[in-house]
């Protein structure tokens, strides 16, 4: 398996097959014995921003802190909870209960939910 080609930027779906973002980053674990292993995949706007440019990453981090939305880390899904499928990674989590959906929830509550007919 080629991590960059096969895992990074791949679609993630939750236990209900609901799309819950892409693999924005990988967290590797180095141990004394054996090669490094993937410990987590990261999902979140902060990791995305850091990949675009470190400065953009710092801006986003500051903005997130000011809004009290997130800490200085993106949401991490342990590798053990992921099963690679042909077109996606299936995660054994409920998307609605993770910070991955915090922007969705915010938009739903403050903007879209207030428009009649939503």
């Amino acid at each position, binding site marked *: 398996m080629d991590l960059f080609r096969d895992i990074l930027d791949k679609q*993630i779906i939750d236990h209900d097959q609901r799309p819950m973002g892409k693999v924005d980053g990988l967290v590797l674990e180095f141990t004394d014995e054996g090669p490094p292993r993937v410990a987590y995949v990261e999902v979140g706007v902060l990791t995305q921003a850091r990949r*675009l440019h470190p400065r953009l990453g710092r801006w986003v981090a500051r903005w997130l802190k000011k809004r009290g939305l997130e800490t200085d880390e993106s949401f991490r899904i342990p590798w053990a909870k992921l099963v690679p499928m042909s077109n996606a990674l299936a995660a054994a989590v409920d998307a609605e209960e993770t910070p991955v959906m915090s922007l969705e929830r915010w938009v739903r509550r403050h903007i879209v939910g207030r428009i009649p007919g939503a």
Partner: protein
Amino acid sequence: MKKAFEIALGIVTSIGGFLEIGSLTTAAQAGAEFGYQLAWAIVLGGLCVIFLIEQSGRFAAVSKHTIPSAIRERFGVRYYTLLLVTLVLVVLLVLAAEIGGVCIALELLTGVSYQWWALPVAFVLWLLLWKGTFGFIEKGVSLLGLVTVVFIVAALKLHPSWGEVASGALPTLPGHDKAHYWFIAVSIIGASITPYLFFFYSSGAIEDKWDEDYIGTNRAIAGLGMSFGALIAIAVLIVAALVLLPQGIKVEHYSQLPQLLTSVFGYWGFILFAASLGIACFGAAQEISLEVAYFVAQGYGWNWGENVRPKKEARFSLVYTVVIVLGAGLTAVGLDPLKLTVLSMALTAATLPVSVVPFLFLMNDRSYVQEYTNGFISNAVVLFIVGLSFILAIVSIPLQIFGG
């Protein structure tokens, strides 16, 4: 039986959806200034869009991926973001032009200036996406778009010399206004590919759960639908060459456009023109607003789909809402719809490599399309036309803007 129906519906909606303000205006300008000489640009643009649509459908049917999602996966978040920014900037101008087209149709019918119509039109556009099931509306508007076939009737009634039309299908060097000739050629090619239909098309194929069995269906829809669509654009060019050119009218203002049909059909020509323009542009505006929302949702891995209620996918709904507001805003502040149209079509041509080149990589990648990779011709035709229009665009856009 079901497949025959799907093919028929696909072809009919492609024909009805082909014409929009871009193809209409650029074909009319070409005919009014250069007669049949620029017919080749419509042929090239049509050919390119046939290949792109066929590839997009094949890609979705085999890989079960939408194109934006695959571009993100294969080329990473940086390239995806570059493409997103480019697409949004160009598409907002195109959307403003399409909304402008609907508003002009309403101005023609009511006499109330187009700017006043921008917000009401945007509201109806948004409401249909918000309330409706997209697929149904989109197909409905495309079917109504068949009214644009009236241009073919008009062209036939004018009895053009078909030999001369055919000779226009081969590129020739212009005798006058050289810079403007190439600029219109670029705009025509851009107009046949905008509104980035090939991105949109892969989403439909995924939603209809296409598989390898649909490759033939897809080829028929792409080939026939887009060819007939391009014929309408050629009809517009013929009518403009026979009606506007002899009078020396150069299409510098949209109020000159209804003459295309009034000269043939009289009063009803006026009504038919307004209906064609309004419906065609409305359909295109719908597709573009949705397309941006699809592009963002598929690239960021959100839920997306025709029948998702706004509250179930709030970010998706927010994207098309913002896009419509911005597009209508550009129209409402009074940017000239005609200039906006021609410029946005040329910009489409100039930015095509950014979206088409990675797409071609995907079409040749066996991990996505298995044994259904592009053949030599599919690759060569698209690369040649996109490359040519890119070169023409970067040369002729500055000449057009700064050369007066």
